[in-house]
């Protein structure tokens, strides 16, 4: 699952890192919409290429690259399934190939857009922007805690797997069904320990006066700077430009 490298945030001091998450969110939404909307492979390629300046300024080549390389594995699946579906629904061979190519580029472009967002946005700033977008704090906190406990759960799953393997559990044996069934002795302890952990975390939160006041303060408040407005303007203008291509030149 190397695609997940695209969610592995590290601190950085580049202008992209310093952007307000809300302006990056505008970009994320507009560009994802374009990527889903257009079918023309050249436009989709253009959308993919348009993320590269962000990758470059944000200096996230390494993890971005891993994530894009990891997506190649999925591309072959997407291409084959899409091709078969198109042929079965009566398209010509050429159309089916073209549609497969579009789908694949679309997938990579989406991965790239999401990776640029998550690789340059810290979970705490994202949480804070959710609070400032008037999302209730409980939900924002839940999101933040999910981000925080992913590595912890990963570590725990590793420990449980080691423990079960040392008792003779063979995870990599048998056909697909048996392999899935082999994971049950890993999943059950993992789920139970997660429930226990949740209780302990709740105790810790209560011990830190969680729920003491209806309107809590935030230590940090996000503010938009000139870079943010510039970034939003560029995103919005290019969005409109591409849409007008669709409206006036008929490119879909």
């Amino acid at each position, binding site marked *: 699952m190397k695609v997940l490298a695209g969610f592995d945030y590290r601190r950085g001091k580049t202008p992209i890192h310093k952007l307000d998450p809300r302006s990056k969110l505008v970009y994320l939404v507009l560009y994802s919409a374009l990527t889903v909307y257009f079918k023309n492979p050249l436009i989709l390629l253009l959308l993919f290429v348009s993320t590269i300046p962000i990758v470059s300024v944000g200096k996230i080549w390494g993890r971005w690259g891993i994530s894009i390389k990891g997506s190649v594995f999925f591309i072959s699946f997407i291409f084959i399934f899409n091709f078969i579906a198109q042929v079965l629904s009566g398209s010509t061979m050429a159309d089916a190939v073209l549609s497969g190519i579009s789908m694949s580029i679309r997938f990579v472009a989406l991965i790239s857009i999401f990776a640029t967002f998550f690789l340059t946005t810290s979970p705490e700033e994202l949480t804070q922007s959710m609070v400032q977008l008037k999302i209730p704090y409980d939900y924002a906190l839940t999101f933040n805690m999910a981000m*925080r406990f992913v590595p912890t759960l990963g570590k725990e799953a590793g420990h449980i797997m080691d423990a079960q393997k040392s008792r003779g559990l063979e995870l990599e044996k048998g056909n697909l069904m048996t392999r899935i069934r082999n994971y049950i002795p890993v999943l059950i302890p993992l789920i139970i320990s997660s429930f226990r952990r949740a209780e302990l975390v709740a105790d810790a939160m209560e011990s830190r006066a969680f729920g003491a006041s209806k309107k809590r303060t*935030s230590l940090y408040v996000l503010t938009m700077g000139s870079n943010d407005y510039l970034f939003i303007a560029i995103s919005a203008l290019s969005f409109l430009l591409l849409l007008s291509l669709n409206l006036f030149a008929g490119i879909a």
Partner: protein
Amino acid sequence: MPIIEVQSLYYSYPGSKEPSLIDINFKANEGEFVVISGPSGCGKTTFCRALNGIIPVSYGGEFKGSVVVDGLETTKHQVYEIAQKVALVFQNPENQLFCTSVEREVAFGPENLALSREEIRCRVDEALEMVGISHLREKSPDELSGGEQQKVAIAALLTMRPKVLVLDEPTANLDPLSARSFLKLLARLNEEMGVTVLLVEHRLEMVSHLADRCVIFDGGKIVLDGPPREVLYSDTASRLGIGVPKAVLVAKRLKLQEITKAKPLTSWELADLVRGIKP
């Protein structure tokens, strides 16, 4: 007036047949450093949770008697009110740190109290400074060592300016060196800030000389309560199999008390004593 007063406390978890705490009477004065020990399952953890009200408020179960902290009776107030008086540090640091940066973690408490931003900033800086982890401010709790995580947990509680620190085996997951530095920090907070410390700890070797008082639990009851030298030299203590310091064991075997009146607690006290004895 004592800062903590527990009177004939009885508690049993929901669905359990045996009570976890039976007839506990306990007092702690402001500024005291109390070490609590006892065999596993003796009720220490339950006792800690009863001190800030999460038992019985969050857990339910059968609760009799009273726990009064700084004039507030725990069953008559919300946990967040008691939490500002009694700070509770848990055994596993990983489960009590739930934010994605140390600074956010430490700010979480005062943010909940809806203090002003300047006040929060000031308290956060102060707490990080006091615990000596200002350099970790930007890190994620996940990147820290166990000892550092426990320090973050303490700093996160100090920002609420508690009067009492209750710590439930905070060094259980730490190596001896980090444990020692953590316990030194506690002694310093106790001395410099006058915070009352209630520390559950098995490694009496490392803490008994820091404590004013030593309390031993067994089977949900307090069986011993007094100055560390009295408690650890008692026959009950050796019978219970708690982690009596080695210096105490050696002094008892040497029957040092027949020669001198002193009751050494640490190896250096013992060494000084032995060197001082003239043949």
